[in-house]
């Protein structure tokens, strides 16, 4: 049998290493690092999926773990990172974007109902900055006056200069 290779795709896996108390604001932003984990480890952990909510930190929207796939993803790591909110609430980027795209959201964090914004100067937020700015601007235009905290445009603009 002769095989002709027409395409080669690299496959890699990842997991966010989130310090337990990051969401409580005890760790500085500088503590955030991205680690690679062995695929086997991740799979083994997935078997405990039922206990997720008690044992691991989960995305408040989909209730899946931060390093698991959100319901919009096909396989782990298919472009589903988390973003950190200024209000200290973190979500899968897909989940929070879908929520902020609804009119009901009024651009607010689902947990604390403050105007949602990305935490500035955080590496993993950086690539979503423009997209969120657009999203929040359009939500804001559809909901005047806004039901909660105003989006702080200065923070949005200045956050990622460095």
């Amino acid at each position: 049998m002769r095989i002709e290779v027409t395409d080669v795709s690299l496959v890699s896996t990842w997991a966010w290493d989130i310090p337990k108390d990051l969401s409580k604001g005890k760790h500085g932003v500088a503590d955030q690092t991205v680690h690679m984990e062995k695929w086997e480890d991740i799979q083994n952990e997935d078997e405990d999926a039922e206990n997720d909510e008690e044992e691991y930190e989960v995305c408040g929207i989909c209730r899946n773990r931060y390093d698991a796939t959100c319901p919009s993803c096909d396989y782990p790591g298919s472009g589903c990172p988390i973003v950190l909110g200024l209000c200290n609430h973190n979500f899968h980027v897909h989940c929070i974007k879908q929520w902020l795209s609804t009119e009901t959201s009024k651009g607010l964090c689902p947990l604390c109902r403050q105007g949602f914004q990305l935490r500035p100067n955080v590496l993993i937020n950086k690539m979503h900055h423009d997209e969120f700015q657009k999203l929040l601007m359009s939500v804001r235009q559809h909901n005047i006056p806004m039901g909660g905290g105003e989006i702080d445009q200065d923070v949005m603009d200045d956050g990622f200069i460095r």
Partner: protein
Amino acid sequence: MSRIVKEYMGLQKRLQTPEFSWISFLAPVDDDDLSEWVCRFQGPSESPFEGFELGLNITIDLEKYPISGGPRVLFEPRTVAHPNVKWDTGEICLDLLKDAWTPIYTLLDVVGAIRDLLADPGLDSPLDLDIAQIYDADYEAYVQIVRYRLEEARLARV
């Protein structure tokens, strides 16, 4: 894994905890279809609903839940006399199910909020104006009506 499947998987275990001992039943009508649910729960203590079991019919739009909207929840029609419940249909007026919805809420949160509403009606925009007026003017009469209606519904079921 979708949110509703996630909730479904952990639900029966959570229902066995003391926190939810007041819920006697919460499950999909058909385990293969998570869009239709039924719930039975005990009326809140120190309210006219104490000592009665109430029934809810819950519909979930699987495409939308929980991001673009919460569940649609109705009391069993013609059982609940309450300022925020439409008597004939069982429709419930609760901000959490409408404008105040966020995807953080789960089915258990929703059922809990409905139970709280029974004990503590909102009188700003009542669905049942007559009951709201009686509640306001003569609380004892309100209690009598609520309990009479519930008793009637209970007898009808037997």
